[in-house]
């Protein structure tokens, strides 16, 4: 047995990770036709799951047909199989998989965990039918609303909320605090919080404790402020006494006197409470208190020597002594109210989940933890019904500590039985820390945990993806870049001695992560095009007031043209950006460009982007939404104006815009049908309503909008499946979540892709453009986005609460939380550097980046690039253009004649939309169920019809009770109805004639159809047969009508045709129990 059965692949970009994973999978699966049932391969997304599955199936199909493939050869050798056996084995495994597909276990972590939890739900006390709620924010929104309901009932909470809200008003912010709370409450889903949830909830319930904790913090800050202020005041009193003011002293406000002034103005900014270089000498030098030319030198010197210098020393001493505690209390205070409220939200959330029978995706890990901790692996398998021996986990760098914690026992069990397990990942591509991903697992933790006797660490060194030049530049860039980055980090550390060393050591992590960054180009790729890179560091154009980013945008269309000239197809090009904002920027720019006269014939400027092509971008969708708004609320004039505008826009002619905004002439600008049908429209269910609107507004003719309309209809459909489907709620939901609704596109669209770097992970493109390659290395330094850290402090009094929410910021350097601060900084550095790595390693042949010029310091990733390239371009044999600040490497490909791309639709697609109401044939049970007159309100049910139904179920009188029971079970009648119906029928039996019909002597057919040779089928209510004799009875409700008789006569004819010689017919009016002979 191979002891090293725990294989960890540390891969790099383009190193054939998926290939390796698929191969390892197959290697295991090919041991036995059904062995695949024992392998669980874990992927990161649903998409990756589907892809992996189809890849495996494809490979097997290729191998089983004996087609030549490199992996096939490798496998054949490694498995020691003859060509024939290999082919046969592949065929068998393939058909086993295809016919036992439910056990073909390639899944996301979440899907697998769900499965386990479901099978244990009864035992762990979960609501059995719990729904997994994926949209946590939607839940949060409701829960926070629930919490607001408590205002006025829960005194402490009310007070906090009032404080919180007042504070905002005092800061001139909007008084509404809901969004703040919702934003903050997202922390509830983070793993950090989850880990401490129990303890925190306990604290939350102890309001007294929480309050006293708050009071303690307040005391620290206010005591400090009070004392410090006193120093300031004392100094000023002295100055007053000697008729001196700040202006008289050296450097005025920046000098020593200014320091005293600062002391009088709490709250203090702790980063600015140190003496500056003008003030420092004043501690021991009298001359440092005045300017040389001052004509009151002597007076100042006297006071300084006498009092002020001493006072300065004392106050500095005091400040230094108390600063750390003060600073710490200050940052801890900042989130305290919100934190308190958050704890209330937590308990409300628990209630909500219980009430609604839902489980949040973020809870899964917690439940699983309990299951996995308590139970041995075999029992888990028994309950789950899945029996895995091997685990293959992909994208391991993005796996969270919790997730791994839950896997670990399973993997351990497998290892102990000698089975192989496999992890694949790349620390350098770890960019999902914000979702809990912990790259240090892959870096070292897992290895430490499993033990080196099991672990077999392998590296994948080849880069199959990129051209030679791309590989070379990236090798240098990231190798040198990582070193530079770790130096940069070390520079930032303001600690001393041991602590400094401790933090510094962490910087090594960056270099470790990147030590294997250098990649080789595999032999077989060496013949190919060598690739081309260009990194531009663009200066702002001051004269034309153009920012560098505007200049970049202007270049993009030209770049697209240029690439197309070289034979790169537009759908082989990708723009990679940081976030949705930039996506939109590029999308908007190119759409404008395409429609402008600058666009050149024969080039495509089309782009698609899953993220930025929001549904709301479509005029047709806007039109539909505004119509819904208007229908939902006829007083909404703005909706009406929008509706008119988008209707006109959808028709493409807005020649007289002023007229369409004339509220009084609206009718002329909307289709007539819309007004005629308005009332009818309001009565339609959403799905039908949308279709109807599509017809009314002629949207089915708007080809360019098809994708949008379809996606929108999907949204409506799915909404209706998960929510109360009325228009009001839909609109409300849309308002809040429309920005998350995107067009669904098939991959093959003829357009360049614009996507976030995060989404591009795992993908590759012939040409990659990173138009705004300038994100910060640290967390957002402009403070636009708060980064929250949860800190477990060990110094009193801050450790009274095990977990404090603290905002990341430079002021933490002065606090007890400094180490946590540096740790977070390092992580941020890694995140952002990794992001650069992911972005720059997507390219096959062409890579372009743009960013602004470097500033004074290295603050963003492009600064790093600049530094490295500036010093290494020569060694790389690249060129550096000083003038335009561009680094170039390699030769652009040859110009090629571009063939015009003709896309032909296989089928001329039509957007068919027709009304169906009059076409549908369905048998209705309700047809006669409800009274059609509103006056018989007491019972909405029509007794006549019930009796009709009842009679059909009775052949002989004794069957009455059973028939009544059956009707009751079907819910048609209640116990009360049963009694009434029963007595009504018994009354009927009093009629001799009727009673005779129910005699046992007859052969009875109730509602037995007669099959005529052609045409309509007849179903007579009741026919009694005895030899040649046939009696037909038709039950009727309501008043006798002439045509009733006609019907019975038709029956009599039919029966005669069937061969009965004595046929008689009756009508029986059930309400009055009246028999009419026909």
């Amino acid at each position, binding site marked *: 047995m191979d002891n090293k059965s725990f294989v960890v692949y540390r891969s790099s970009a383009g190193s054939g990770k998926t290939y390796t994973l698929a191969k390892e999978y197959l290697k295991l699966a090919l041991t036995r036709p059904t062995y695949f049932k024992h392998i669980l391969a874990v992927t990161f997304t649903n998409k990756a799951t589907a892809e992996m599955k189809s890849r495996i199936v494809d490979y097997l199909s290729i191998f089983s047909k004996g087609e030549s493939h490199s992996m096939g050869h490798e496998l054949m050798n490694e498995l020691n199989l003859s060509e024939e056996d290999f082919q046969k084995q592949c065929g068998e495994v393939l058909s086993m998989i295809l016919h036992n597909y439910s056990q073909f276990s390639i899944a996301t972590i979440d899907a697998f965990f769900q499965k386990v939890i479901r099978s244990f739900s009864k035992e762990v006390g979960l609501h059995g039918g719990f729904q997994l709620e994926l949209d946590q924010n939607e839940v949060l929104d409701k829960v926070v609303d629930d919490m607001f*309901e408590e205002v006025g009932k829960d005194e402490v909470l009310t007070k906090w909320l009032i404080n919180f809200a007042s504070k905002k008003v005092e800061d001139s912010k909007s008084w509404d605090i809901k969004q703040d709370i919702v934003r903050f409450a997202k922390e509830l889903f983070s793993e950090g919080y989850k880990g401490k949830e129990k303890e925190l909830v306990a604290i939350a319930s102890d309001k007294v404790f929480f309050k006293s904790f708050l009071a303690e913090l307040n005391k620290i800050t206010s005591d400090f402020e009070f004392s410090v202020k006193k120093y300031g005041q004392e100094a000023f009193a002295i100055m007053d006494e000697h008729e001196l003011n700040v202006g008289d002293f050296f450097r005025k406000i920046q000098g020593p006197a200014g320091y005293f002034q600062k002391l009088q103005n709490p709250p203090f900014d702790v980063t600015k409470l140190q003496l500056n270089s003008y003030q420092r000498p004043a501690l021991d030098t009298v001359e440092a208190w005045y300017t040389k030319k001052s004509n009151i030198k002597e007076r100042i010197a006297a006071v300084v020597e006498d009092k002020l210098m001493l006072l300065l020393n004392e106050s500095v001493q005091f400040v230094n002594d108390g600063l750390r505690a003060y600073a710490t209390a200050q940052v801890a205070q900042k989130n305290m109210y919100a934190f308190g409220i958050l704890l209330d939200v937590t308990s409300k959330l628990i209630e909500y989940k219980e009430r609604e029978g839902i489980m949040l995706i973020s809870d899964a890990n917690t439940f699983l933890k309990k299951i996995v901790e308590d139970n041995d692996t075999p029992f888990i398998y028994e309950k789950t019904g899945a029996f895995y021996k091997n685990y293959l986990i992909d994208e391991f760098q993005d796996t969270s500590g919790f997730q791994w914690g839950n896997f670990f026992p399973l993997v351990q069990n497998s290892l102990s039985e000698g089975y192989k397990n496999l992890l694949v990942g790349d620390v350098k591509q770890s960019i999902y820390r914000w979702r809990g991903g912990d790259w240090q697992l892959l870096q070292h933790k897992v290895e430490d945990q499993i033990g080196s006797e099991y672990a077999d660490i392998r590296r994948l060194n080849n880069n199959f993806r990129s051209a030679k030049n791309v590989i070379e530049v990236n090798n240098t860039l990231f190798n040198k870049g990582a070193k530079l980055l770790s130096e940069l980090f070390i520079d930032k550390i303001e600690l001393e001695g041991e602590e400094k060393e401790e933090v510094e050591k962490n910087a090594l992590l960056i270099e470790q992560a990147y030590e294997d960054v250098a990649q080789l180009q595999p032999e077989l790729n060496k013949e190919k095009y060598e690739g081309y890179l260009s990194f531009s560091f663009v200066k702002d154009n001051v004269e034309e007031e153009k920012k560098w980013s505007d200049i970049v945008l202007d270049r993009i269309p030209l770049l697209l043209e240029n690439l197309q000239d070289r034979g790169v197809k537009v759908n082989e090009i990708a723009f990679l950006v940081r976030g949705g904002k930039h996506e939109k920027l590029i999308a908007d720019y190119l759409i404008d460009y395409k429609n402008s006269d600058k666009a050149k014939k024969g080039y495509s400027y089309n782009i698609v982007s899953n993220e930025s092509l929001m549904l709301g971008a479509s005029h047709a969708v806007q039109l539909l939404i505004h119509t819904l708004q208007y229908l939902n609320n006829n007083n909404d004039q703005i909706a009406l104006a929008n509706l008119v505008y988008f209707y006109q826009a959808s028709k493409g002619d807005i020649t007289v815009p002023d007229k369409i905004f004339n509220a009084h002439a609206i009718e002329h600008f909307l289709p007539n049908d819309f007004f005629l049908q308005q009332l009818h429209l309001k009565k339609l269910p959403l799905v039908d309503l949308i279709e109807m609107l599509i017809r009314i507004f002629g949207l089915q003719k708007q080809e360019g909008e098809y994708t949008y309309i379809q996606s929108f209809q999907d949204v409506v459909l799915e909404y209706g499946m998960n929510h109360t489907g009325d228009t009001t709620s839909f609109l409300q939901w849309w308002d809040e979540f429309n920005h998350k609704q995107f067009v669904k596109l098939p991959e093959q669209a003829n357009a360049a892709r614009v996507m976030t770097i995060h989404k591009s992970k795992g993908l590759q493109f012939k040409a990659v453009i990173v138009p705004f390659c300038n994100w910060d290395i640290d967390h957002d330094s402009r403070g636009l986005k708060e980064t929250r850290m949860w800190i477990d402090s060990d110094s009193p009094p801050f450790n009274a609460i095990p977990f404090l929410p603290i905002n990341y910021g430079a002021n933490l350097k002065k606090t007890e939380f400094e180490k946590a601060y540096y740790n977070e900084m390092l992580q941020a550095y890694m995140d952002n550097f990794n992001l650069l790595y992911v972005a720059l390693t997507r390219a096959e042949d062409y890579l372009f980046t743009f960013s602004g010029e470097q500033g004074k310091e290295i603050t963003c990733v492009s600064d790093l690039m600049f530094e490295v390239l500036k010093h290494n371009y020569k060694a790389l044999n690249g060129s550096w253009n000083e003038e335009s600040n561009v680094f170039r490497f390699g030769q652009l490909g040859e110009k090629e004649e571009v063939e015009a791309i003709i896309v032909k639709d296989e*089928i001329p697609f039509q957007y068919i939309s027709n009304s169906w109401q009059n076409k549908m044939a369905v048998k209705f049970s309700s047809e006669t169920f409800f009274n059609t007159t509103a006056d018989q309100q007491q019972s909405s049910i029509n007794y006549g019809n019930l009796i009709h139904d009842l009679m059909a179920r009775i052949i002989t009188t004794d069957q009455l009770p059973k028939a009544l029971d059956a009707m009751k079970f079907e819910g048609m009648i209640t116990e009360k109805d049963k009694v009434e119906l029963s007595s009504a029928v018994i009354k009927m039996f009093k009629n001799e004639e009727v009673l005779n019909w129910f005699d046992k002597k007859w052969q009875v057919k109730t509602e037995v159809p007669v099959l005529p040779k052609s045409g309509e089928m007849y179903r007579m209510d009741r026919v009694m047969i005895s030899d040649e004799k046939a009696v037909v009875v038709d039950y009727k409700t309501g008043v006798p009508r002439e045509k009733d008789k006609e019907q019975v006569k038709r029956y009599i004819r039919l029966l005669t045709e069937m061969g009965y010689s004595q046929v008689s017919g009756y009508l029986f009016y059930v309400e009055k129990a009246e028999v009419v002979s026909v």
Partner: protein
Amino acid sequence: MTVLPFLKQIAQHVQSKYDDRIDEVTLVFPNQRAGLFFRKYLAEELSVPIWSPAILSMEDFVRQYCRLQATDKFTLIVELYQVYRKHISGAESFERFYYWGEMLLGDFEDIDKYLIDAKYLFTDLSNQKALDDYFDYLTHEQKKIIVEFWSTFSDQSSEEKKNFQMIWGKLYDIYSEFTTTLKNKNSAYTGLVYKEVANNLPKINKNQPIIFAGFNALTTSEERIITHFIEEGAEIKWDVDAYYMYDERQEAGSFLREYKKKKVFAKSLEEPYPTNIEDKNSTPIYLNAVAQKTGQVKLLGTIISEIQKQGNFNPEKTVIVLPDENLLFPVLNSLPESIKKINVTMGFPLVNTPIYSLVELLLELQQQSKEQSKGRCTFYYKNTLRVFKHPLIQQYIPQQALANIKNIESHNWIRINVDQLQADELIIPTVFQKVENTSDIIVYLQKVIGLVTVTDEVSLIEKEYAYQFYTQLNRIKEVVEQFRLDLDLAAFIRLFSQMMQSLRLPFTGEPLNGLQIMGVLETRNLDFENVFILSMNEGSFPSAGKGHSFVPYNIRKGYGLPTFDQQDAIYAYLFYRLLHKAEIVHLFYTTEGGVTGGGELSRFVQQLKYESKRPVELTTLSHTIAIKTQKPIVIEKSESVFEALKKYQVSPDDASQKRLTPSALNLYLDCRLRFYFRYVAEIYEYNELQDQIDPMVFGNLLHHAMENLYTQKRNVVIEKEDFKELKLLIDDAVKEAFATHYTEDIHNMELEGKRILAFEVIKKYVAQVLKRDSDYAPFEIVGLESKDYTINVDVEWGEGTILIGLKGIIDRIDLKGERIRVIDYKTGKDNRKVESVQSLFDRDASKRNKAAMQTILYSLLYVRNNQAFKGAVLPGVFNTKEAFSKKFDYHLEIEKEQVVNVKPILAEFEGYLKDLLSEMYSPFVPFDQTEDEKKCENCPYKGICGR
């Protein structure tokens, strides 16, 4: 078509074999639907009318032989709960049990259908090694599996294991008591009926011809029953194809291959099997990949209409199969006009119907209603409005619905009493009454459902939904009463929504004509020339299936209970069967999944692709995307625009006309187009009724509170001492402001939730202003929210000039000595610094001080209207931030100078004001969009501008 449909073959068989006594034949099919088609085929074979033979589904057939009456699921679960509760201490509440009840019931169904001895199944074998003695009927393999399962209990004992064992140990007792109770009541679940019949096989008349047809997977009891009948002379007919019969791998044939091995069935499964599927190896199967669900549906329509154009399309021989039932209505809406008749046979989820949404709304309305003191109750506006806006209510009482919506919104009523509603005779009093206990809730829902669906305007489909709800509710009511289930509203809602989740409205398309739309199960035994299957995705076809069971997988396997493998095999058969006789096959699937997955091609298509010789032709639907961009909107000053603009023209001395306010001017400076929309085209923003207080309402409430507070003190000198008293009035003043805003009676007004917060925060602010005022006292208030100040400005117009009216409502004017202060309260980010007077009118200045512009304009209004006053007029801004800061100051600062008197700058100010109005009325300056997109952020018209 060369090959006859399966049912047609049976019809011919019946006709030729039983010619003169067809009506004596009994035909048993797996489901009802097959019978309908069979009848049609049979009729085609006849020359004279005859009585139809008896045609039964298997279930109905078996029921005939049993005295037990299968009852509905809800009753069964309640019944089960009664037993369960006795055996399990600390059992959960009923509504929490419901899910487990469903699951247990499912397990019992299986146990009985598969004739498993429950006593042996529910044995705890963790401590017994005596398996061999007990279970000699199990095979060695089965025993091994079971032993393995129980061996996991030997090691440590976790909480979960204990829980499992605890329940497991009681299940046999529960099972047997449950079945006994049912039997005593003559009722049963289906499995029990099957078991009874299988264990007491009926005596039968050998002369009566019985034909079983179209079966595939039989449960043990079904197999035993059918075997019995066959042994007594009945016939059985199978519908099979060589493609999956001869290929051992094909799960589609797995059951049938087993039957072939059995003596009773062997003869009826005679070889050679038909080779219909492979016979068509030259005809491709079309596979259509589409990104969206709706895309599938629309493509389906397109393809049908294409085929129609080629001429040989017969709707009667066409089926559209919907594995995803939610696509029903999209499909209905997307068929070509030329399809005139549509026949729908499938279950449609009741929870997706409009009636259900109304029911949900009603339950929410009840849940959020509040009992008032006098036994009356109030309803929350959100729910109330949604009820009135619901299509079914709109349908029923359109007038009242609208009137009530309008009333509630215009009065800002947050909680509504039924007296406040404009009522009709029936529906409103019915809907807006408080119901508490379970039966009342049910009656309540039934009444409303009955009422709203009574009108003729309600479509039959909706009546059908209503009927289903009505009957379901009847059942619940009966059971609830019978078992005295006591549920509070919340529990009822939880229970109700669980019950509804699984309910399907059984559409049955009758009579048989037109194009067929069906669910997967409904296609059993039917053959069509044209087959269209949507949602060929994993999870839809085969469906993900619940397959939940309390019996673990290996135990099920060990004892021979069905597992998901069987389920998958049944689906496989259903899929391949559809290919038997089809000429044209189009499959559709979505390529893009959602968050929960999807987007994976169905295994069946993959099987075809990799294994069959039939070509699978893939087409991917993609549309070019031509998204339109918003063009700039520019409104030129056309004649009609000028006409509209003239509404602000005034004649001297008439104060009552339409006038421009400072906010209008500010708006004009911010964005000319926005001004146009708001003040020229008069497209007003609709202020939605909200219980959360937006900044504007917050500001208004604050103003009114201040006004209320000082009205008493108007025109008298307020001394420092007076503030003691004023302070005591704050509460009432703020309350009054709220009462006015929400049109509520101040004495009965109850604030709740967020409104309390706003209330408290406003109080704080008012108190703070009072503090500032008391520092300033003594002073006299001479104006509060004064509307009576207007001025007219002359503006060039064509050759001459016209007068344009301005007006303003001044928050407060006070007088101290020779100084008038014109004060504006601000809650936003306003500050008091002004670069220069000119900057107030500079629309490009990024931080143009709107508050200053407004206050100075107010001051101007004051000065012009009080020419006699010779003292200083001081414009002041009280803003929230400063009111609380230590350095309270309200003076404007222009060019860093405090403005202590506005008079010196008025001339300059007026000059710019005139320029501004001239521009507004100039024919050369159109109303265009602002360049600064930041200004669009809160603009209500940004939808139109696309910003």
